[in-house]
Each structure stands twice: as structure tokens, then as C-alpha cells.
């Protein structure tokens, strides 16, 4: 194997596949990056137990020449050293040469490294994605779906199923749901090219989707998604992203959402967020409990008390108020998380008394919904 490659392209792709490499890998070879040089380009592969990423760097990309391949071949190099080396090399091109002893010579300008490699045949093959449900999503929509749900997954490993995002497809509508059982986020999207695919209980690790979102190139128009029994494959032009699915049954979330409400309000998202953020200043990251009270038809009062520290009172004017008076407590941080991903000016909140979960959604859209369970005093 011997090739010369544009360093910046190389660095970027190495960074992408590195997302799938964990230093605590169970198989030692998985701490490495597999590099394969073909006649028309090279692939980089990284893999851990959850995700596998394969990036393809085409030899020619439009008018640009990325790689000049002299001899095809393959090797696995320790990601830790390799990534740092390539990043720090002096010139804009790098030359890689593999000898018979699996030693890879890396040259750039005046600098030369010889890295011991491992046999690429020992690197596990990416699982074959057999036929599954296939559909296409716009890249920006996919990113939005991830952004608007992934924040709500549970970080606790005790209930693994809640660390994932539930995907379900029915009548050309993809519904994404995440909950850590204190709050729930739902986002719906119409999928035109769904090819009549329907599925449910597809639970993708939240972490996988977050990583995917980070490496997906905005210039890319669409992403093909293939869902099988135990994995999901995202396919972009020069990228394969494979994630395992979580085992188990996702809780039934539909019936958690109250169908009636007793108090409906509408408030400007920015003001509400700013008021809650200030109210949280005193809680020192502890419980984040915030109290909300309706003062009159136009005004809400937000308070927070931390006995050792003090008390804060905020007032927020609301655009609309309808129904019963209200007094409720909740985790303010969860509300802020949701407000951050709601892109509308105003939010509508529907309460069903102080003891029941309440709903928040953008005032002008109904494809997104956030549900919060209240905090109560005992």
C-alpha cells in the first residue's frame, strides 16, 4: 500500500471515524483505524460495540484530487497515535507506505514516522445490513429530529431502553420520542419517500444519533436509512454509519399525554427561558425546582427558593391565558432544555392541574411536543 493524500481531508475523515473508536474497546484491534486503499480512493473504518463508521475518500472529488494512490493495500493503525500524528504533520500532503512487516511509514515534508500496524484481516467486518425497511430523509430534517429529541434521553444505564430514541413510522409519518421519565420529547416528520415502510419499537441509542448528527455534512442533501431487526444504517454519499439498536420494549408513551387541559397559556419563549434561567441561578445545580403561579390573566410569577441561599421572584407576561388559576412546580432545567430546541417565538403550555404532567409546544406548529412531570411537595 502506498498513497499520498491531502492532509486536511485526511484529518477530517479520521476525526469522523474516531467517533466510533473507544479507548476502552473490548477487542484491542478496535482501538485502531482500518485504512484500505483502493484504486479509486481509500476507506477509513472505526468500530466499537455500538457504532461503526466508514468514511470513503474518493481519489478525485469533482475537480479536486484528494488522494494519489500508487499501490492498493490495507492496514490497521492505532487511532490514538495516528490521529495526533496526522494532525501535527508539517506539510499539506502526507505519504503513507506500508511494508511487509505491517510497519507503516508516514512522511510529510521533513518528518517521518514508522508506526507498527496490525493485520487488517483481524479487524471485524462491518455487519452486513440485510434487507430492511428503507427510506430517505433530508439531512437537515434528520439533524433537526435528532437535536429536538436526543437531549431528553436518559443518561442512566439502569434502564438502558430509555437511553435511546424511539422511532416509529406509520402512514408516511416518522415519530421520534425520547424520555428520561421526568420529561418527554416528541417530534414528528412527514417522510415523502417512505416507500410505504412501517415499523415501530426501533430504539436507536441517543449517543449514536448525536454522533451521527455531528459528522453529517450539511452540504449533503439526503440520507438513506435502513432499519433492520437489530441495527440501523445511515448512508450518505461518502459515509456509512451503522448503529446497533437497543433491545427491549420502549414504554408506551402515547397514553402519557393528557388529552384535556384545565389551563392554557401562551408565552414568549425567550422571556420564559430567561426568567427560568435566572430562577435557576440560586439552585446551584441541585434540584432545579422552579415554581410557577398565575397572578392574573396577563402575568405569571416564577419563583425559586434555596433555603441556604435565598429566593428569587420573576414575573413573565403572557400573551394568552385561559382556564383555571395555576400553581405548579417543575424542574426548570428540563423546561430550558426544551425551550432551546423550540425554534418558535411563542410557546403554548397546557396544564391539567398541579399533579399532572403538562405539555409545551411551539405555538405555531404541532409537529413537536414536550411533556413534563411536575414536582410535588410531600
Amino acid at each position, binding site marked *: 500500500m502506498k498513497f499520498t493524500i491531502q492532509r486536511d481531508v485526511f484529518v477530517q475523515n479520521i476525526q469522523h471515524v474516531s467517533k466510533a473508536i473507544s479507548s476502552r474497546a473490548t477487542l484491542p484491534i478496535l482501538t485502531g483505524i482500518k485504512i484500505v486503499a483502493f484504486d479509486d480512493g481509500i476507506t477509513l473504518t472505526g468500530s466499537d460495540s455500538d457504532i461503526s463508521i466508514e468514511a470513503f475518500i474518493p481519489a478525485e472529488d469533482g475537480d479536486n484530487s484528494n488522494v494519489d494512490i500508487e499501490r492498493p493495500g490495507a492496514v490497521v493503525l492505532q487511532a490514538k497515535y495516528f490521529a495526533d500524528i496526522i494532525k501535527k504533520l508539517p506539510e499539506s500532503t502526507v505519504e503513507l507506505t506500508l511494508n511487509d512487516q505491517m510497519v507503516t511509514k508516514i512522511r510529510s515534508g521533513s518528518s517521518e514516522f514508522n508506526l507498527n500496524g496490525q493485520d487488517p484481516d483481524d479487524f471485524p467486518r462491518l455487519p452486513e445490513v440485510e434487507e430492511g425497511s428503507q427510506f430517505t430523509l433530508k439531512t437537515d430534517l434528520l439533524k433537526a429530529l435528532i437535536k429536538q429529541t436526543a437531549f431528553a434521553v436518559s443518561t442512566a444505564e*439502569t434502564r438502558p431502553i430509555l437511553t435511546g430514541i424511539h422511532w416509529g413510522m406509520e402512514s408516511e409519518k416518522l415519530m421520534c420520542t425520547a424520555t428520561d421519565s*421526568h420529561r418527554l420529547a416528541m417530534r414528528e416528520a412527514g417522510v415523502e419517500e417512505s416507500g410505504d415502510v412501517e415499523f415501530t419499537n426501533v430504539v436507536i441509542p441517543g449517543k449514536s444519533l448525536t454522533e451521527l448528527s455531528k459528522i453529517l455534512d450539511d452540504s449533503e442533501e439526503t440520507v438513506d436509512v435502513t432499519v433492520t431487526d437489530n441495527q440501523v444504517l445511515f448512508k450518505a454519499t461518502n459515509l456509512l454509519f451503522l448503529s446497533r439498536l437497543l433491545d427491549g420494549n420502549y414504554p408506551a408513551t402515547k397514553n402519557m399525554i393528557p388529552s384535556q387541559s384545565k389551563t392554557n397559556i401562551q408565552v414568549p419563549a425567550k422571556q420564559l427561558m430567561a426568567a427560568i434561567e435566572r430562577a435557576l441561578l440560586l439552585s446551584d445545580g*441541585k434540584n432545579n425546582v422552579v415554581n410557577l403561579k398565575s397572578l392574573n390573566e396577563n402575568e405569571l410569577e416564577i419563583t425559586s427558593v434555596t433555603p441556604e441561599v435565598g429566593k428569587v421572584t420573576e414575573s413573565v407576561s403572557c400573551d394568552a391565558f385561559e382556564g383555571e388559576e395555576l400553581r405548579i412546580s417543575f*424542574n426548570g432545567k428540563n423546561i430550558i432544555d426544551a425551550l432551546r430546541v423550540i425554534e418558535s417565538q411563542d410557546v403554548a403550555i397546557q396544564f391539567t392541574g398541579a399533579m399532572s*404532567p403538562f405539555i409545551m409546544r411551539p405555538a405555531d406548529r404541532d409537529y413537536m411536543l414536550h411533556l413534563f*412531570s411536575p414536582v410535588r411537595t410531600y
Partner: protein
Amino acid sequence: MNPIKKLDASLSNKIAAGEVVERPASVVKELVENAVDAGSTKIRIAVAEGGLQSISVLDNGAGIRLDELEAAFSRHATSKIQSDRDLFRIRTLGFRGEALPSIASVSRLTLMTSPDGAEGGKIVLHGGEIQSRTQSPPKQGTEVIVEDLFYNTPARLKYLKTIHTELGHISDSINRFAMAHPEIAFELTHDERTLLKTSGSSKLLQVLQQIYGLQAARGMRRFEAETDDFTIEGYAGSPVDARASRSYLTFVFNGRYVRSIPLAKAVQAGYDQLLPIGKYPICCVHVTLHPLLMDVNVHPSKLEIRLSKEKELQHLLEETIRGVWNKEAVIPSMQEPFSREEPTVSGDNASSSREKAPSGKSEATSFDFFYPSEETSRNGTTEAVRETIRSQPETQDIPERRAAAASPDRSSAEVQEEPAVSRVPELHVIGQFHGTYILAQNDDGFFMIDQHAAQERINFEYFLDKLSSPSREMQDLLVPITMELSGSDAAFIDENKEVLAEAGLVLEHFGGPVYRIRSCPVWFPEGMEKETAEELMMELKQHQDLRLERVREDAAAMMACKAAVKANHHLQNRDMEGLIREWSSCRQPFTCPHGRPVMIHYSVYEIEKMFKRVMN
């Protein structure tokens, strides 16, 4: 059916003996109590064959009036209680008038006494029947010799354990007396071998050293405190010397050794997490209180008492002990040279007014077996010990009741106000060992720090702060957490639903063994709701009441452990320095939340000794 008949004296004594005299150690205990009550300053106990062959207790106390000698052996004859009222203000160890007749009924007993050193009497009983009544040499005090114990109750004899075990009980009993009465010189011999010998110098620490050894005594810290009702004082052993049994705790109430689980727990609680799980400190606590506050008459062996205001005492003890260790650096180290200075705790001097033992007669010198003697005690360190112990300024005469300097309230306030001065010495990182221990040095020597334990301690205090929310708020769960409970646990939960709900934990039965957590307190760490709920239930089960602080501590410890860097993790020097800096500012840096030590110290001296650069 036989006619109802009053039991004859010898039979009823035998029945009483069943309660009072369980084993040789109970005989020893009763006889020594009598000797203590008689105001003796020297008591010698000699036993043969674990006490089964013979037990003799010799004292130099007040003796028994010769005309009352027979009366002492009739049941309920006592000189110690005159009226009903006295029963509620017992200051003596004996009060029932049962011991002598009970012992006499199951042995061959000889008692010689002289109340004034001028004339002496001797009485011999077999199985409770008087055999003879003669004169004896006029030697101040009393000697009781019990032979052939249980010779006439073969059943009882059958249940006795090995000589070794029986001797263990006797020795334990005498140890407790010695700790309860450091002003009395005790000597215990078994088959001519000396097992314990105390000086009667009133120095409790000296007694503790005789019993537990030099190393343990050196680690002990004196404490004292008082409230309106209680005065407590004593010594608390270093956590480093903790033992695997509660029996190293000694509580002395007005001169009486008693067992008390509530107080044992208070002591343990006072050590916070300095103790490894299942370990107990060596600790001796003297409590002085008005006799009205304690009822001794609850157990035939007089080993248990019922206390009024027990909670108050528990609190006082816990806070006092906490105060002791909150100020200390508890770093296990190799044995240090004697010359090391002991920290001065208070400005009082040890040799001040030494009060005499509350004895009627003083210093009657009928025996010569007492300290000082050149002969070394069993661990052969008497001389060295005397040296060290004398050099400890906090050594105090125990029977002396001084106005205690620190009230518990003040001591706990002090702890909080104390400026954040680190108790960890300044350290310089040298390197890392096996990816697990940080090696460091300073002028005092060489230190090893368990990086995982240090990290755990940091995390623990962080999480505990996070969890310590006084608010009564609970979070409803959108997705309830299911847990399976065993039959007995389920029944327990059903019964205690309300109590748990009061603590913010709402459970519902879901069918079969499955229960669901619907709501939990906001302080429950996310992702650990189930474990924490289980902790809470365990807590309720074990203690009948819910002390949430304890549950919080357990939860914080679990989180700390999960979040801590594992051993075998290579750290850069900079990381190690950062870790040590952070760890140094912990409130209780010396142990991990499970009580294991974080740091071990090797003094320069010790290292030089190992390399034979110094000889000692």
C-alpha cells in the same frame, strides 16, 4: 397434684442461682462487684481451670461485720438497699442480696473477712448449707473462695464450654472492671499465670494500654463533654485500630459496665465514614448521671440498663466523638518512634489534684502484688508504655469529675466554623505505582495515596452536598420504575406505604411480586432511583425510623464509587497533583466513603530503620 408449698431456702436459692450464676464468669463478676462495693483499692482474682476448680477473690475493702456473716448468705439480704426509694437511686453495683446465697447454693464456698483488721471470721458452706463458722486471721478485707462450682447441678455443668472459653469470659469481665475502675488495682491470675495487672493509678489510658496494647493506646484520643443530665468522658481509639467486633466498646455508667447497642451505634456514627464496614473502634466511655435516670433492675446479670433521656445521651456521645476525629489527621503509618510529640488537646496538667478512690479504707497494705513491679506484662512493653503514656498530656484521672470544657453544641459549632485549613500535609508528587497509587513525599516522609479512594472521597462529598436538600419535593415519573420484591419485603412495603410516602417515595403494587415507583424525592440521584429506594426501605426495616441522612450518605457513596476513576489508570503528574489538591480540601479526606484509608504514611525514620541506617 401436689399441694402448694413454700419452697425451702436451699431449693429457691438453687433456682435463683440459675439466673444469677450462669457460668464461672458470673461468679467472678458478682464477687468482684461486692469487693468494689466494699470500697476496695486492691482486688486480686485467682482462678483455676477456667474457674471450675476454684475462684478466689481477695479484697482490702470494708469487710463484713462478723455478726452479719450468716445473714449475708440468706436471700435478699443486702446492706446496700434499705427502702423502696433506694432501688431507684442505686449507686452500688449490687442491690438484690442474691449473689452470695446463689453462688453458695451451687458450690463449696469459703468466706473470710475482717471488717477492722482486728478480728476475723470464716464461714464455710456446701451447696448452701453452713458447714462451719470459725475464726480467721484478722486481715483487713474479704476473701471469698468458690470451689467445685456446679458440683450439685450436673445439668448446668454440661453446658459449660471449654476452659479456654470460660476463661475468656472471666478475663473479659475483669477487663471491664479495670476500665470501669481505674482507681482500683486489679490482678487476675489463671493457674498462677498473670493475665491482667493494673496499677490503680486512676489513669484510664494506662488501663486501656494494659488491655489493648501500646499501639492501640497510642492512637487513642481523650474526650469529655457534659449536658445538664450527663457527663461523659473517656478515650476513643483510632480508626486505624478498628476491630471486627462491637465488644471493644465499653460503656461505664456510674462505675458499672453495661452493654448498650444504641450507644454503640452512636459511637460508630460519630466516626462517620472513618470506619471500614463491619469494623468498630476501641472505645471506653464513662458516663456519670443521676442514678434516678437509669434503671439497673432490668436484667438478672445487671449488664443492661434502661435509660431515661437515652436519645440525648446518644446525641451527646455521637457529636463528641465526631468532634474528636474531625480535628484529627487519620493517616495509617508504620509504627513511629516514641519521641514523637503528641498533640496537646487541652491546657490541663495531668498531675493535678488526683482524687482518691471512693474507698472507705485507704492503702491498707495486705498484699504486695501490685504495681510497680519490674516484671513485664504479657506483651513485654510495660516500661516503654509507661514512658509514652506519661508523656501524653491529655491523660486524666478518670474518677475526677471536672467541669467539662466543651459542651456538645459548642464542639459541633466549632467544626463548622473552622476555617478551611486542610488537614492533609503538603505533598509533592513523585510518581504513580501500578496505575493505582500516587506516590508523594514531603519532609515527614513518604506517602502513598489510593487514587480511586481519593477520587471517591471527592465525589462523595460533592454528591452528598448535591443530595442534601432539605426540601420536601418529589418528582413524578412519566415511566414508573418497576422492581420485584420478595414476599416478606412486599408485605413490609404494603404495611409501610404511608411512611415511605411521607419520605416522598410513592410505590404501587403492579401485580405479582412487581411494584412500581411512581414518584420519588427530587434528591434521589437520577439513574439510581431503584437502588436508593431499596436503601430507603432497608433503612426503614433496620431502624424502624427513617434517618434520611443515612440513606443520602449511602446513595452518595454509591454514586461516588461509580463515578470514580478506577484503579489501574495511568495519570499524568499534573493530573495527580490536581487530584491531590482537590482531595486535600475534602472535609474528611482520610478515608473513602466505605472507610478504607486513602493515604498511608512511611516516616523517614521508619524507612531509615528498614534500611538499617538507624538502629532501634
